[in-house]
């Protein structure tokens, strides 16, 4: 709080300083100077005083602000306004550019580190190798010579867990959406929708905790009672909890798709004597299918990138197993295990995480792009 007050005071004082230094600079010039010094104060606050970044971050905006105040001196109102607009437009453009820069930053940084990884480990070995054991101790003198980086078992584990999650979440979410948009009374809708939204807003670490503390032991006991051995970190438990996370996702996207179906189709089916379920099955759902499909794709990509649930509830060891009762690992789990703790940026172990990150980014981006395209097309058609 004190920190914030200090910042505001600093901005106010700096405006005064600008006024003293450059008399006749026009109000906007002073504001600009104030804002710049304010930004400088924030930026400077991040770095310990006396270090090099501090001396760059702190005075640079201040100098810029004072220069702005100086240069605005002696302009008439109209010219000052024009100049302000030009500068404002530049700032707006800069802000819009940040989003693009971020994407470029992701692609560039992840790709650059991945490239270094592929200099140590062959690209094809990575993509089609059947063994993943990066944790094998690597001696100093033979960096990259041992440890195997075949991504297949990791991908298989990811697909197993997300497959279980989607197998549960897709039908449940879709039918919840059908219930909410086609059958439920207004009151029921008003009560159920917030619950589903709450499920979507729950932090994923909470789901992870639920998986570890409640569901996994429950499944283990259940398995023991039925005579099946279920691992403590089984793919089944992780998949089921992930399904809980995906249900609201699928439900709300499917609901949007169902709501976008023109009411005349529904009415027409009912007028021809169809029951409501027949109308839903043979008319409404087929019409909504592209939207539902896109929603499922978005949910699937979300499941691929989901991290906390699997970090807490799934295993670390990569096995080529499709048995849901065993522990498997996922791409995100590997990224987290490889990148937490000490990293060395010339170690294939660390770089492998970037290659996995690139793989994950490309996979999810492709799915999102397809899904958003389908949704966008539909939006235009219905307009």
């Amino acid at each position, binding site marked *: 709080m004190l920190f914030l007050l200090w910042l505001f005071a600093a901005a106010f004082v700096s405006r005064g300083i600008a006024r003293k230094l450059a008399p006749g600079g026009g109000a906007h010039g002073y504001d600009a100077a104030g804002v710049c010094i304010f930004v400088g104060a924030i930026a400077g606050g991040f770095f310990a005083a006396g270090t090099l970044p501090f001396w760059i971050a702190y005075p640079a905006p201040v100098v810029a602000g004072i220069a702005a105040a100086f240069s605005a001196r002696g302009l008439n109102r109209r010219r000052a306004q024009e100049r302000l607009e030009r500068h404002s437009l530049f700032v707006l453009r800069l802000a819009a550019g940040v989003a693009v820069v971020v994407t470029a930053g992701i692609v560039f940084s992840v790709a650059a580190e991945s490239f270094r990884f592929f200099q140590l480990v062959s690209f094809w070995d990575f993509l089609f190798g059947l063994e993943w054991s990066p944790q094998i101790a690597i001696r100093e003198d033979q960096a990259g010579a041992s440890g195997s980086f075949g991504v297949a078992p990791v991908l298989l584990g990811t697909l197993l867990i997300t497959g279980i999650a989607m197998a549960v979440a897709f039908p449940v979410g879709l039918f919840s959406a059908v219930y909410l948009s086609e059958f439920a009374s207004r009151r029921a809708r008003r009560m159920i929708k917030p*619950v589903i939204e709450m499920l979507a807003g729950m932090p994923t670490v909470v789901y992870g905790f639920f998986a570890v503390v409640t569901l996994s032991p429950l499944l283990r006991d259940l398995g023991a009672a039925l005579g099946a051995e279920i691992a403590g970190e089984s793919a089944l438990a992780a998949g089921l909890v992930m399904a809980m996370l995906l*249900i609201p996702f699928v439900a709300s996207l499917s609901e949007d798709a169902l709501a976008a179906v023109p009411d005349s189709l529904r009415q027409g089916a009912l007028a021809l004597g169809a029951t409501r379920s027949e109308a839903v099955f043979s008319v409404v759902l087929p019409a909504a299918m592209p939207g539902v499909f896109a929603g499922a794709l978005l949910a699937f990509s979300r499941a691929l990138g989901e991290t906390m649930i699997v970090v807490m509830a799934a295993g670390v060891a990569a096995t080529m197993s499709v048995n849901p009762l065993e522990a498997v690992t996922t791409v995100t789990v590997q990224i987290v295990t490889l990148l937490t703790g000490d990293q060395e940026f010339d170690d294939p172990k660390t770089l492998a995480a970037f290659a996995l990150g690139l793989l994950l980014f490309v996979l999810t981006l492709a799915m999102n792009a397809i899904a958003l395209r389908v949704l966008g097309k539909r939006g235009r058609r219905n307009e």
Partner: protein
Amino acid sequence: MNEAGIRKRRARERRFLFLSAGCAAIAIFALAGLLASVALQGWRGFFSASLRVVLHLDAEVVGEKGEGDALAYRRLIKRAIAERFADAPRGDKRKLIGLFSFSSAVQLRDIARANPERIHGRVTVWLPASAKAEAFLKGGDDDGNGNAWRLMPYLEKMRDDGDARVEWNSALFTNADSRDPESAGLAGALAGTALTLLLAFLLSFPAGVLAALYLEFFARRGRLFSLVEVNINNLAAVPSVIFGVLGLAVFINWFGMPRGSPLVGGLVLSLMTLPTIIIASRAALQAQPAAQAEAAMSLGATKMQAVFHHTLPSAMPGVLTGAILGMAQALGETAPLLIIGMVAFVAEAPSGFADAATALPVQIFLWADSPEAGFAERTASAILVLLFFLVLMNAAAVLLRQRLETARG
């Protein structure tokens, strides 16, 4: 036509209704199960147990001014509790210190140093109980791990004599993290979260709103525009762990920013919330009637003035709602913070942006991973604290939205 056919169709209709209502019920059941599992464990973590003991602050052990170390004070407690149960067998006597938390010795030392006049005398103090004793006093009949415990009869005796109490666990909010569950608190994590979110907001809110203004009012519609638009929509769906990887590679490895600091955390979270804020702000700006800006411009305002003086202020509630929801999402985000190293054990609250820190959800992850029995319930308590803040933020967003609707209304 044919009766049987109609009956069959009606039965199918009922089955279908039942099925779809059942699916909606599964969603509700899932939420109920989740909340119940957290709440049932979490309430216990908000309470802590302490034990009353009469002890002799012996100057020979702790020094004339109480300058002795924690181990010396631990000896005092050991002696006092052995005195209290003078007729216990020798083996038990030595173990009785296990009723007290490791932090009790430190606490006793602080008491003695604050009141040096009481050294040499006898004092009656309440000291924190160990995790095992706490589990028992809170109504378990084992030590929290399902094992019977040898010291239980002694603890029962103390409870019956009124020498044990369970009270509000203020340490949960005033202490930072600790290896002992009974003295571990959230103060450090809350401070880390506050710093991280403050930075994320300061960076992403202005940038997001300005970007939305540009895209909505000033950008020329064309190839480049749709590229930026697609880019923002896709960025919103990039897995959060990827942002952590970006932060590690760019901010920590290239720029050399301090690892595990709120500085890097705030930067990463701001990049993550940026698309959310842009999308929400654009929606809020689109909802404003164009006539408003046109009226301003017809009176001689430039487009920039019309947008900044009229459209943006009246769209502000909607913009803020979006920003709050974006920050709520950032509050619960864990994975990117793991990657940039905010997972270290940090025993002190961070005092600046460059200090090593944890955040609330990361603290939950760390505690959930800890094997000690006392951490399970404290993890659940921490989750309740996190959910409390989330509810608070969402309520603020709902209130803003309602105010917006009545204002239009």
